[in-house]
């Protein structure tokens, strides 16, 4: 079994392992709410729109995590709130407004990165590198994980009511808009934390794939968040191993593991898997046919 432990004799691999567990679990847990609220596309838009904020932060205060976090947060919230504002004050609908803003922000970000004071490569932002994770990144991830998990666990009941039936939740005095805004902020935080590991383009996978997988396997919302967290963390660690031995970048390796699990659940999930449904015996049908004959 030494092949499991062998990669972790290196300091950078041990750091990467810790980052995988933290980021994988937090994203997977939060993903349940993203999937149930159908926020996957909004989350995608948020991840892209972080680019100009990151570039601006890199230009003004250099490449430190605090600056990047603020820059990303600012840009993402700008697009989320801006999208909401445009959708509520014109005839353009939500998804169009958000798409219009985020793609504009993404283009702006690519242009701005050219002017960053420190020479940063676009690749680094787009694809991340979990092997180059620094202590300060780990601390950021840790703080974000604690904040996210504590808020979600504490607000589980009102969140569930708001996601299931916003109108009924409102009659019970739940501030649905506020909870959704919190959810958006948590998504942005989770993306900032996974940025260093898998980059802007792949961060959506860590967020959406674990919960989507459990959604195909279970009828329990609690299983979606806790199970999503567990799948997220273990897949991230498995992806890290694969990237070490197969010598492929860690981000794509992690997302591919999650993607394979998702497809497997889609095909072979015991209750909702399409292959499982096909293979099920058609006893009722046959019985009723017999009765007819």
């Amino acid at each position, binding site marked *: 079994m030494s092949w499991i432990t062998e990669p972790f004799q290196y300091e950078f691999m041990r750091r990467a392992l810790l980052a995988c567990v933290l980021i994988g679990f937090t994203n997977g847990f939060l993903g349940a709410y993203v999937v149930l609220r159908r926020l996957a596309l909004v989350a995608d838009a948020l991840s892209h729109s972080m680019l100009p904020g990151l570039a601006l932060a890199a230009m003004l205060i250099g490449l430190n995590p605090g600056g990047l976090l603020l820059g990303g947060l600012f840009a993402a919230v700008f697009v989320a709130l801006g999208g909401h504002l445009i959708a509520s004050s014109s005839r353009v609908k939500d998804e169009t407004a958000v798409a219009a803003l985020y793609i504009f922000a993404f283009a702006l970000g690519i242009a701005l990165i050219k002017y960053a004071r420190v020479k940063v490569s676009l690749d680094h932002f787009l694809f991340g590198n979990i092997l180059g994770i620094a202590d300060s990144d780990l601390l950021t991830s840790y703080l974000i994980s604690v904040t996210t998990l504590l808020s979600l666990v504490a607000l589980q009941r009102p969140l569930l009511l708001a996601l299931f039936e916003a109108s*009924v939740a409102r009659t019970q005095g739940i501030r649905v808009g506020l909870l959704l805004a919190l959810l958006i902020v948590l998504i942005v935080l989770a993306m900032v934390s996974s940025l260093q590991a898998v980059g802007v383009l792949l961060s959506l996978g860590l967020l959406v794939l674990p919960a989507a997988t459990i959604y195909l396997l279970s009828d329990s919302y609690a299983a979606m968040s806790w199970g999503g967290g567990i799948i997220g963390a273990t897949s991230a660690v498995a992806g890290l191993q694969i990237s070490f031995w197969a010598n492929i970048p860690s981000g794509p390796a992690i997302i591919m593991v999650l993607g394979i699990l998702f497809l497997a659940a889609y095909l072979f999930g015991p209750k909702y898997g399409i292959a499982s449904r096909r293979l099920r015996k058609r006893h009722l049908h046959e019985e009723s046919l017999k009765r007819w004959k």
Partner: protein
Amino acid sequence: MNGRLVIEDLTVSYHRIPAVHHLDVQLASGSCVGLLGPNGAGKTTLLKALAGLLPIETGRVRFNGRVIADARLITYVPQREAVDWDFPITVRGLAEMGRYSVLGIWKPFGARDEAIVNQALQVAELDAFANRQIKALSGGQQQRAFLARAWAQEAEIYLLDEPFGGLDKNASTAFAEAIHRLRDSGKLLIVSHHNLADAAELFDHILILNGELVAFGPTEQTLTKGNIDRAYSTKIFSGRKQ
């Protein structure tokens, strides 16, 4: 509970155009009130305003002398199309949701909550289906699952928006029995409905609405040809010049 829902001079508007005008009516607990009227008469608007989902333009609504700010007293069951049936939740989970508003964010689920949830499943005759995901129920069972949640919430006033829509005869009968059980245990039910033919069997009181109050009272006195003609033949006053 012996209660009285007093609606005084209630006007509800969409973008300043009133949909329900100056409604004055008093409803008593332990009755099942059918809310009738043509499409666009303001039935859903009235239910939503009572539930606190729409702002009230004029007037006030009080239950036993109190403004119904205590949201727990009142429960709104939306039309079936408004629900995400793929949501990963079982019938029992749905009924347990009703307890959230009683327990708040922190209080743990106790033996009494458990008992109320079980009772709710019995009232709705869903004990056998408690562990089913809500999509794996028939239309009538789905409606009753929402009644179970309302019961678990210990609500006194039930607002049901077209619950009989799309139910076949057997499902309608089972649902009618369920709401009559609620009425007999002292709850007030306000049910919007569009089928005049079976209204007399379902409701003990009828409220006919057409933008404004057309008639209200015990079914046999209110569900008359004269009242129905009045409600369905007049144009709805929308506040706009025609």
